[in-house]
């Protein structure tokens, strides 16, 4: 328990009388790649929203590196080392790719109103370093030539990768990815698998990903948590989870569960 980097304790959330999350527990160890799967409406995105501070749970706690983050503003939680991406593209369309990445360093830079408007040296140095970091980040994902493209001129797949890079540039401890592989073709899937591993191995970032692309989840995740109707119904290695009867029932219904156990 104490080794967990991110810890969710007995979290419950209701919207207008409907219990979307019901007493969820989750512990993610540092360096883990955790998959979060489940049928639609299971509460997966809500879970990420609670962790990142967008919704406050009605009960329960969330601990990041031992520090309780429930009730804090999302921007404060980001500062503490939590990053996330979203199901829909949230790239800043009014900036170039390079500027998007530099914007990812917002909470790691500190030039204020005075330093920036007066163009003081402290600010200029900080800005140069930020640009440098942004270029290195582009190299890491192999998209250096996109630096000056406007955010609005990228394909969907490209946007998703830049958004991940933008989240990583701020040196987070944990990154929450909401369906990052949406729309990826089979070829790209293999590349993406590699990218996720590199992020964990080379940058030491712990990942939690919501995914529907089961193949990716099975390949890359160390542990998988399965949610259904707001409850955690299974947790374990990908193989354990794949064969769990409750999971099969949640996805495919009782009939197929019976058929599966029969075969």
């Amino acid at each position: 328990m104490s080794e967990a980097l991110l810890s969710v304790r007995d979290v419950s959330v209701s919207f207008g009388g409907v219990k979307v999350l019901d007493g969820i527990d989750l512990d993610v160890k540092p360096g883990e790649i955790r998959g979060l799967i489940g049928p639609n409406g299971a509460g997966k995105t809500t879970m990420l929203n609670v962790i990142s501070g967008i919704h406050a749970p009605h009960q329960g706690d969330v601990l990041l590196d031992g520090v309780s983050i429930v009730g804090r503003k999302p921007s404060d939680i980001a500062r503490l080392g939590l990053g996330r991406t979203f199901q829909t593209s949230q790239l800043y369309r009014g900036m170039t790719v390079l500027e998007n990445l530099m914007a990812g360093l917002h909470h790691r830079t500190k030039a204020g109103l005075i330093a920036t408007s007066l163009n003081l040296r402290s600010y200029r140095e900080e800005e140069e370093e930020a640009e440098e970091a942004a270029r290195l980040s582009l190299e890491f994902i192999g998209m250096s030539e996109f630096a000056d493209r406007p955010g609005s001129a990228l394909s969907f797949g490209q946007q998703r990768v830049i958004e991940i890079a933008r989240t990583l540039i701020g040196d987070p401890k944990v990154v929450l990815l909401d369906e990052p592989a949406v729309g990826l073709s089979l070829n790209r899937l293999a590349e993406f698998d590699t990218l996720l591993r590199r992020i964990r191995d080379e940058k030491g970032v712990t990942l939690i990903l919501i995914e529907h692309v089961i193949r990716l989840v099975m390949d890359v995740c160390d542990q998988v948590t399965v949610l259904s109707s707001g409850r955690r119904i299974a947790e374990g290695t990908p193989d354990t989870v794949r064969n769990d009867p409750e999971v099969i029932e949640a996805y495919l219904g009782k009939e197929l569960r019976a058929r599966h156990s029969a075969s």
Partner: protein
Amino acid sequence: MILLTYLLLSGLTTGSLYALIALGIVVVNKATGVINFAHGELFMFSGFVAWMLHVQMGVPYLPSLLVAVAFGFALGVMTNLIAFRPLKNANIISLVLATIGIAFMLRGTARVIWGGKGDYLPFPPITSPEPVMIGDIMVIPQQLAVLAGALVIMAAFAAFFRLTRAGKMMQATADNAKAATLVGIRIDRIYMLSFGTGAAIAAAAAVLMAPLTLLYPDMGFSFFIKGFAAAVLGGLTSLPGAVLGGISIGIIEALAGGYIHSSFIEVSAFIVIMFVLVVRPTGLLGSSGLRRV
């Protein structure tokens, strides 16, 4: 006691004027998600057209009303084609300012055509002009006609949105334009229809209200802003909200004017708006849509 009743009644009647304007605004917003800042001018212009037909040219009342409403519909469609369709994907500021631009053009045109005829043009009422006594209070029947008109329009449109196919298509388009296109709804036509309908309501409102308010080219904006305030107060997508908002503002104005100071009439609506939006950002009856990310 009699002062209170008088103020309430006065507020109710002014409020129904605002409600009528608000209804037109909400109809357009319900279907397109946009506020037509030229709504007041559409209202004003159609009113003048009715005046031109009925008072100047002697056309009987009902045909004048119908022609004015049809003309209003056409103006609404024109606004849609000029200011909305080319800008569908632009940011909201551009949209708002484009409709403001049209408002200026309409106001200027009205001033050119009819401005010279005298400052405030009178318009004969649909009912007899003789005041009627309700208990101890004197009421002009036209005021009741306005209130009745507002309620009828509200009920008609509530039914329209809930029961007719066109109404449901409008709501679908407002909810999710892409999905609506996928199921075969011609959203461009829906938008055009919505703008036209909103403007037609404005035209009907103008004809009902003109006997009480008189006609002048600048009336558009002052009524628009009260109507807009009423629509927001009620929750921008709620038809009953528009009526409730309008009447609330009318009553608040009357009470503030009567009990505090007459100068408060103009401003009390705005104080209320600021307060309501802070406390309940989506208005009295509006719904806050949950965003999916």
